[in-house]
């Protein structure tokens, strides 16, 4: 059985750390899950060697490690979702009292092209980090880890309705941030 080149593995490390940080926003926790991921990869080195896309495979392992960690942590009180995070402020700012947009969304110019632009992804990452921790976490579980809403509610110990509300706020916040910082509709 061939060994994994440690350097090849290290090459993926910074990528995995960035990924884990987006979800966990805690350098120590991110470090831990990435370490566990690399250990798991070494343990199944034969599979690693057979991967056409090792990075995708590593991210797959990392996702599971993150979900496990969040699952454990969700039972601990400090990670309860949306406590003390006043996200209604955003919704109140976006809509007038009659329920209409305060400032209706403008067209985004060539969004598809942005996906090919490295700078766009930096902005996207920063916008994620600007969201309140638990909002970002629910959003990442949904969109990034592709968990179902039911799973997320369960993991986070919140009601389904609360889950929808949080996901909606996340999308509003992210849209607003990209609008201002990337698509150039700053007001």
């Amino acid at each position, binding site marked *: 059985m061939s060994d994994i080149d440690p350097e090849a593995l290290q090459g993926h490390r910074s990528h995995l750390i960035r990924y884990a940080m987006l979800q966990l926003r805690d350098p120590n926790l991110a470090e831990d899950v990435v370490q566990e991921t690399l250990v798991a990869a070494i343990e199944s080195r034969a599979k690693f060697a057979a991967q056409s896309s090792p990075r*995708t495979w590593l991210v797959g392992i990392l996702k599971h490690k993150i979900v496990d960690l969040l699952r454990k942590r969700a039972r601990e009180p400090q990670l309860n979702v949306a406590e003390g995070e006043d996200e209604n402020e955003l919704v109140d700012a976006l809509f007038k009292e009659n329920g209409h*947009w305060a400032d*209706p969304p403008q067209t985004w110019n060539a969004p598809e092209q942005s996906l090919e632009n490295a700078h766009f992804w930096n902005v996207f990452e920063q916008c994620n980090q600007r969201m309140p921790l638990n909002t970002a976490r629910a959003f990442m579980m949904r969109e990034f880890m592709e968990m179902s809403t039911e799973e997320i509610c369960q993991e986070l110990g919140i009601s389904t309705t609360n889950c*929808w509300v949080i996901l909606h706020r996340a999308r509003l916040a992210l849209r607003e941030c990209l609008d201002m910082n990337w698509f150039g509709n700053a007001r």
Partner: protein
Amino acid sequence: MIDCKHNTELLSQSYDRPITLRERIAMRMHLMMCRGCRNFEKQLAFLRKAARELPRKL
């Protein structure tokens, strides 16, 4: 007639749960008359696409 705030909630939830026929009709009616929400609808689709591509782009 639903307002923009309610409509954006429904548009967002359509990514998280099955939407009823009644809700779908309400959204369509609103979208026909509201450009801001039409832009929002397209942007939501883009957000999902972008977030799901993120792991490959970091």
